[in-house]
């Protein structure tokens, strides 16, 4: 009983949304609950020599990340376990992704799967796949 009385008031983390006018309520940070539709989020780019993939997977153990590359199909599989609470009432807000995920990314066809590097740092899984030698730009010397 006492613990119920001492629960945080409803205004605990509210109030900030009040800075937002009603017409902008969709942008209020604590009001809308929808998160990104895909998990994890991915950024990707190419250089002359490689294809760089960045997956936003915070709070993982590097050994739990299952990364595989078959031809030009890159797939990352893992299970994300977020912190639990002994008391389910204690969870006021749960926005972070929890559970199994798999993301398959089609890389350009000129990648060389044998030259792949993966590094996990600050919650970012960075996978770098080299392009095949023959598809890399090369300088051609002009003979006189």
């Amino acid at each position, binding site marked *: 009983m006492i613990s119920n009385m001492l629960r945080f008031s409803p205004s*605990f983390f509210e109030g900030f949304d009040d800075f937002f006018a009603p017409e902008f309520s969709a942008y209020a940070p604590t009001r809308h609950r929808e998160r990104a539709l895909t998990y994890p989020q991915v950024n990707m780019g190419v250089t002359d020599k490689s294809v760089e993939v960045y997956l936003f997977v915070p709070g993982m153990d590097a050994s739990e990340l299952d990364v595989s590359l078959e031809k030009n199909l890159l797939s990352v599989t893992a299970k994300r376990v977020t912190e639990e609470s002994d008391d389910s009432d204690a969870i006021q807000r749960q926005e972070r992704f929890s559970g199994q995920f798999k993301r398959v990314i089609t890389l350009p066809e000129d990648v060389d799967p044998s030259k792949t590097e993966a590094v996990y740092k600050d919650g970012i899984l960075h996978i770098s796949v080299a392009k095949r030698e023959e598809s890399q730009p090369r300088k051609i010397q002009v003979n006189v």
Partner: protein
Amino acid sequence: MTKEMKKTDTDVSKVSKDQAPENKASENKTQVQTMYPATDIHETKEGAMLYIDLPGVSRDALDIDVDQNVLTVKGDINLATPDDLTPTYMDVRAGAFKRQFTLSAELDSNKVDAQLKDGVLKLVIPRSEKHKPRKIEVKAA
């Protein structure tokens, strides 16, 4: 842990000395697009625990401020991309995370403990002493 606590403490003193450090900084910098980090909030008898997803944010790039009862968490995303990278696909277009939380008076905002690990920030904010649940002994009459 004590180190992180101190860091937050200095931030608090900085805010009280310099009324608007944030505005000054943004005048000099071009505006970086920010996004709201996904957050879990747990409450316990001791206080509140926040888990904030900040992938790509290193300790140096993280900024936690408490001004009165508003807790601000900011962090720049650093992907360390090669200079000649041409983006081909982007789910994340923002360069930084930013989110503010209004703390209730029951929490002691001077004692925020922060830990950053693998892109997840854990904040522990204790209840102020007078708001902690107390057991009252009943004396025999």
